[in-house]
Each structure stands twice: as C-alpha cells, then as structure tokens.
C-alpha cells in the first residue's frame, strides 16, 4: 500500500480523538491552519490510515471509531464516516486505578491477541496513548509491537525509548522506537522554556519560576493520583536541561479540576533580576485544550516514523524523539535545534 501510513492506536481517548479528527479536518489539502507541516517528507496528514484501535472501556470496545470517540470529553467537530475501524478489547494490566475506574468503565470482554491483530491489519506503526503511569500496560504493548514488527511511538511518560532494554530490542529487531512523553504543540512547557530562554538571552538572571497546570480530563486525574512526582521530574528536568539555569524551577500538574473537562489552565510565574538587580516579573496564564494540543506534533512524528521505517533506521531515534517529546533519550538544547535535526534526519543526513 504505497503512500499510506498504517497506524494502530492504543488508547482511544481524547488525544486519539483529536488525531483522528485531524485526519478528516485536514483532508482538504488546501486547508492548513493549526498544523506545523500539512505535508511532511512527502506525506500529507490524510495519508495516515487507522489500521486498528485498542481500548478497554465498555463505552468504546466493539464500536466503530466514529461512535467510540463520542465517549470522550473532546467534542466531535468533523464528519467521521470514513473512520470505521472497530475498537478492539486490549489488555487492562495497570491501565485502571480505583480513582479512574468509574470514568473508564472497563469492559469485561476477553482481550484479543494484539501482536496478531497488528500483523493481520498490516500495521506499520503502533502509537501508545495510554494513561500516564500505566507502566505495565505500556511495556506490554511495546513488546507486542516488537513481536508484530511495528515501529512504536510512546506518548506516555513511561520509560520506553529512554529504557535501554527496549532501545536494544528495537535496534536488534531493526525497528524504530520513539518517545517518551509527548510534548504539546503550544503548552506551558514550551512557552515556559521560551520565556526563560529570552530572559537568559537578554542577560536577565532568573531567580525563581514555576509553570503549574490544572486540567479536568482522565489524564489529570491519573497524574494527581499516581504519576505526579514522575511527571514533575520529567518536566522540571526538561525545562532546566534546555537552559543553563541555576534557580529553583517547578513545573508540572498541580490539581484535578473536573469541570475543565479536556481544558487545561497553566499558570506561569517568572522572576528575574535585570540591570542594577531590578526585579522583573512575568505572570502568564495559558488556556488550552489537551487532546488537540498533542495532535499537530503527533501527525509529524507519525510521518517521521514512516520515514525511519523506509530508511531502515532502528532503535531509539533521538532526532524524532527530541522534536516531539519531553523526555527523549538525549535532550537537545533548543526546540529550534531539535527541528533542524529532524529536518536533516528526514533528508537522510544524520
């Protein structure tokens, strides 16, 4: 099937909804607002095809995507009549905790054989969009993709691309591995980094800073109850690593606010000292929607993964991971540099 990208989705939540809606929203090739690259390395967004989808919610399993996606918080704004892949029962593992059980409503159906399904659907790339902290489940799917001979993209904070064992396995299997922890198109992390960078570039000493966010989706609930400290570490590290700042920086999710739904509010606070030690304060609030915010990066990363498959690049791929993820195997200095490196990678110049 030339010029198409066969993608399986693991976890049919808000992020999946945004991605799949994006495939339809941007199908008309003349419309390209809100994306970084309508066409990327020769592939248009609409060249991505959903080959299979796995979930564990009784509200989604057994239904076509066009129906199943309605069970999420993110509103459906496009016609999904072309999205007919049936959501299949996956393995629950540690994907559900007490606090999220009611919201997820796990199905009691028997799980299907994932690796076999990936093979029979000619899947090339498996995209993991499971809840944060579902380490066992994420690792399970990473193994299944390996067995099926698929590239694996890990959008969760679980260590897969940054896990040497997995990186080695994917290298040995001659398959690309990309992750971990998807970065937003325009969220608190990237704005925070840029503002701090601007302070540093202008000779302002950064004194203290935080970037804290709250959200209402399942992801926020999950984060609060089980991965707050891991995500906190990744985000704080991601910010501090890209800038050479020796000041207290705190970044991460602070609270779960149910009525925000898929919305996210981020509060940024930056204090610096300029000439004569004068205090400079930045107080910023950013309002975004979670699901769609991952979409623009995902469509690029998926197409880059396809190029990696074609080029035969294998193992954890830092060029793609740095471009789209908060915790890549090796951090790069600036988002700009990450973009340039990815462009070189796509052109086949490593």
């Amino acid at each position, binding site marked *: 099937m030339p010029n198409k990208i066969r993608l399986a989705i693991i976890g049919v939540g808000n992020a999946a909804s945004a991605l799949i809606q994006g495939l339809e929203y941007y199908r008309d090739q003349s419309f390209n607002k809100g994306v970084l690259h309508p066409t990327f390395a020769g592939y248009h967004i609409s060249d991505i095809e959903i080959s299979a989808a796995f979930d564990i919610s009784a509200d989604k399993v057994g239904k076509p995507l066009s129906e199943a996606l309605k069970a999420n918080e993110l509103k459906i704004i496009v016609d999904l009549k072309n999205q007919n892949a049936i959501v299949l029962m996956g393995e629950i593992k540690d994907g559900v905790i007490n606090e999220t059980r009611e919201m997820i409503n796990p199905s009691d159906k028997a799980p299907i054989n994932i690796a076999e399904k990936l093979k029979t659907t000619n899947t090339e790339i498996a995209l993991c969009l499971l809840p944060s902290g579902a380490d066992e489940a994420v690792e399970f799917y990473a193994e299944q993709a390996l067995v099926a001979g698929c590239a694996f993209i890990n959008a969760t904070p679980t260590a897969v691309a940054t896990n040497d064992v997995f990186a080695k396995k994917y290298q040995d299997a001659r398959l690309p591995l990309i992750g971990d922890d998807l970065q937003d198109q325009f969220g608190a992390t990237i704005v925070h980094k840029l503002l701090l960078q601007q302070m540093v570039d202008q000779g302002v000493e950064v004194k203290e800073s935080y970037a804290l966010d709250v959200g209402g989706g399942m992801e926020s609930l999950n984060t609060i*109850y089980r991965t707050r400290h891991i995500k906190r570490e990744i985000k704080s590290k991601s910010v501090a690593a890209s800038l050479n700042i020796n000041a207290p920086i705190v970044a991460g999710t602070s609270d779960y606010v149910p009525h925000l739904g898929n919305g996210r509010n981020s509060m940024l606070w930056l204090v610096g000292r300029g000439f004569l030690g004068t205090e400079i304060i930045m107080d910023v609030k950013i309002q975004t929607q979670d699901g769609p915010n991952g979409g623009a990066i995902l469509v690029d990363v998926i197409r880059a993964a396809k190029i990696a498959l074609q080029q035969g690049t294998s193992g954890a791929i830092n060029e793609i991971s740095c471009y789209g993820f908060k915790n890549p195997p090796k951090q790069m200095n600036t988002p700009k540099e990450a973009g340039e490196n990815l462009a070189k990678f796509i052109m086949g110049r490593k």
Partner: protein
Amino acid sequence: MSNHDKKEIRVAIAGLGNVAAAIVMGIEYYKNIKQNDMYQAGLINASIGGYLPSNIKVVAAFDVATTKIGKNISEAIYAEPNMCHPIILPENMPKNNALCYPGPISDGCYQTKDSKGKVIFDTFNYFKTYNKKDVTPCNITQVLTETEAEILVNLLPVGSYNASRIYAQAALEANCAFINGIPEFIVSEQVEGDKDWVAEFEKKGLPCAGDDIKSQVGATIMHRTIAKVFLDRGVIINDTYQLNIGGNGDFYNMKSESRLTTKRKSKTAAVTSVLPYGDKVSCRIGPSDYVPFLEDKKICYIRVNGTTFGGLPLVCDMKLRVEDSPNSAGLMIDLIRQTKLALDRGIAGRLESISSFSFKHPHIQPPSDFEAKIWVQEYIDGKRER
C-alpha cells in the same frame, strides 16, 4: 490563677509551627497597642472586651521537632522547619520562660510510598520528628495544669485525626477551653464513631471554637465574597475553582491526596454554602501544590465562570499573594481573646458567632461574612450569648 494578672490570658499551643510562630511574634509586634487604637495595620480588633494582644501569654507549647522541644518558645519558633516571615527578628524577641514540650507522636506525621515501596514523602523527616527511643513524650494534661493554661489552641498538621483528639481530651482534663485551628471536625460536627466533644466541653463548663481557621484575607474569604457578589447581582455561577500553592510545611504535608479529604470538604463547603444552589455548582478547591521556593508565601488562583443577562458568559479571574501563617495568626489573636470572654462570662460549649466568622467549617455557615461580623460584635458586646 489568682497569682496572675487579672487581664492575662494563658494560652497553650499544640503544634509550634509557622502559625504559632506568627502568633508569638504578633503579640510582641502589637505590644504597644492601646484600648482605643483604631485601624492598626493587620489587626481586626485592637481591644476585645478590654483585652489587648499584649494580654495574651503563651505559657506552653507542644511539638515533635527535635529542633524545638526543650527550648524556650521565644527561641523555638525560629527553629527548622519553621519559616514564618520574621515579623520580629530573633535578636529582638524577648525571652520568656515558657517551654516547648515533646508531644506524643501520633498521626501528625506520615510516610507515603510509591508502588515499588520507595518513600516519596516523609513528614517524620520534614518535621524533624524525635526518635521514640530517645524522648519520652510529656503528659499533656499535667503540663496544661502546671502552667495554668486556660486555653489550648490546636495547630497540628492537616490530617491529624488522632493527635487532635489526644489534645482535645487533655484540654478537657485540664479544664482548658479549646480552639481547633485545623480541618478536623471536632467542634463543628460529630464525626461518626467519635465522641460528642461539644457536649463534653459543655459538661465541664468549657467553651470551644472551630474548625479549620480562616485567614484574614485569604482564598476562602475572597472566594466567598466573589460568590456572594455574583449571587446578589443575579449572575449564576456555573463552575469555579480555587487553586492554592505554597512552600511551607502545611503544603508539604498536604502533598498526600489521602490526607486532604476533610480539608477539601471544609474549604469547598465554605464557598458553596454561600449559594442556595451550591450543590449544583462544579467546584474544585484545594491545596493544589507544593512549590518549595515560595516558602511561607501562598499564592491562590480563583476562577469563577458565570452566566449573566441574556445568557451571556461572565468570567472572574483572580490571583492573591500573601504570607500564609501571619494571615491565620491575625484571626487567632482575636479568637484567643474572644474565647477568654466566654471563660470570664461562664459560657460553655460551642461559641457559634466566632466559629462562624473565623473558621472555614463552623457548625453554622453564616449567610455572609458581613453578617457573621455583626454576630461577633454582638457577642463581644454581650448582646449575644455565644
């Protein structure tokens, strides 16, 4: 008690943390305040029924920190992990003879582990808790009796269910009035399976007030006020949040979601109770995060989404920055004097007016803080019994 100045108010404090430090420093800071002084920065009342801040004497404190126990209170309030803003510098703080005693180690401290058994939070360590092998806890009742304390103020860490009750029991036994500053429901309601504390205090002829101290101008009061304005002016509140972040021991302690059940309940009820349709409003309130570099500063973000004339949206977004502990001490310095009035007047049991005004989770949530303030004035003037 005849040996003491008739005007003296003898107070003991359970939990010599930042709020306690702010109270002790505040007594010194306002020592020259006189009966008729009005509009003193930071004081709600200069005089309460003739009592001035300088009449308050902290005679004993209880804590578990090795850095504090055995020391004079005037010195211990500056010991780690306390970080209250030095309203009075240590060298300017007059030395008193009152001591900080080792309290029992109960559920004021805790540890949280992740799924792999690794300790993530440890307040035993944070609070510098003594080792049970090295220190024998004091007999609280005995200390209260010997120091002739009249009022015991509970300022233990949030989530201290058992520990709070140990101190409440000691207050009963030592004939002390009880002020509960933390979100343990002792004075406001009877928790299932718990004893009827208010009845016990009443039986002993002792007054009590609580639960969960408000701030002078804090998140709760601002949020309540915004809600009240929306209500009075016909704007329906659809949903709202109040996020609080800080860097002191209180926020460190509240990192554990499971310890926050009563805290969230107390804070949420304080806001939704303003609205007749409060139970239909989606409301998320909480201590949201611990940001170490903020130290004793607290930052609060309030968002209120409403619907106004013609079904149009109206949004209020507010940010408040304040020193956390002195903000509570500002009310406590009044509560101590108001409770003393009850002791003078022989009034026992729950002090409704001051509880409604000064606590997030009182027995009676006042229809407005304006009204609660009138109740308190009537109580001070003797026109209202309690």
